[in-house]
């Protein structure tokens, strides 16, 4: 027979774990927190580029290498939804966008993807946060979120 205090402790633990799981579902469902994906790799991801799908939807294909990201600067209009695809040319790098919910690994022979919305204008620093050699501390890029050009 299990001790009454042990039973209470197990019950509280299960309740707290349930609370964590519900919070994760709330973030994924109601708040639409993007879940990072690993995509099947093909050679086209080795070409760094920015593509515009429509007025507010962009795709940035990043290639990480020792010790920079390409494209090193990307311009995105404010309010855009951006798909980020990240791969590496040499070793494993990190991909972290400052003040955004983006934390990816750049893996050679692999593609990681996430989607992020930029509702505030500004310069968003991208840094490598996986030690990758002597130039690691200088490995960074910028996503510049600006107001669209007036015509």
């Amino acid at each position, binding site marked *: 027979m299990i001790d009454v205090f042990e039973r209470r402790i197990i019950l509280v633990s299960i309740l707290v774990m349930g609370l964590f799981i519900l919070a994760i579902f709330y973030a994924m469902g109601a*708040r639409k927190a993007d879940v990072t994906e690993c995509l099947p790799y093909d050679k086209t991801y080795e070409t760094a580029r920015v593509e515009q799908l429509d007025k507010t939807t962009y795709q940035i294909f990043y290639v990480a290498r020792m010790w920079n990201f390409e494209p090193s600067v990307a311009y995105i209009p404010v309010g855009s939804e951006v798909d980020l695809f990240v791969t590496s040319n040499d070793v494993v790098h990190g991909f972290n966008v400052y003040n*955004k919910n983006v934390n990816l690994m750049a893996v050679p022979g692999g593609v990681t993807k996430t989607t992020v919305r930029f509702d505030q204008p500004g310069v968003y620093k991208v840094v490598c946060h996986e030690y990758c050699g002597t130039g690691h501390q200088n490995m960074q890029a910028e996503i510049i979120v600006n107001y669209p050009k007036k015509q």
Partner: protein
Amino acid sequence: MTQPDNSENFVPRGAIAFFAFLIALGLIIWFGIYFLMLERI
């Protein structure tokens, strides 16, 4: 030397306090990071 046998109504107060402390610490750390993540979406 004999001690009174009160093992029948023993309450592990120290263990309960320590467990409550661990649960509270876990909640603070976990939800601290969680709400930071929600802010950054």
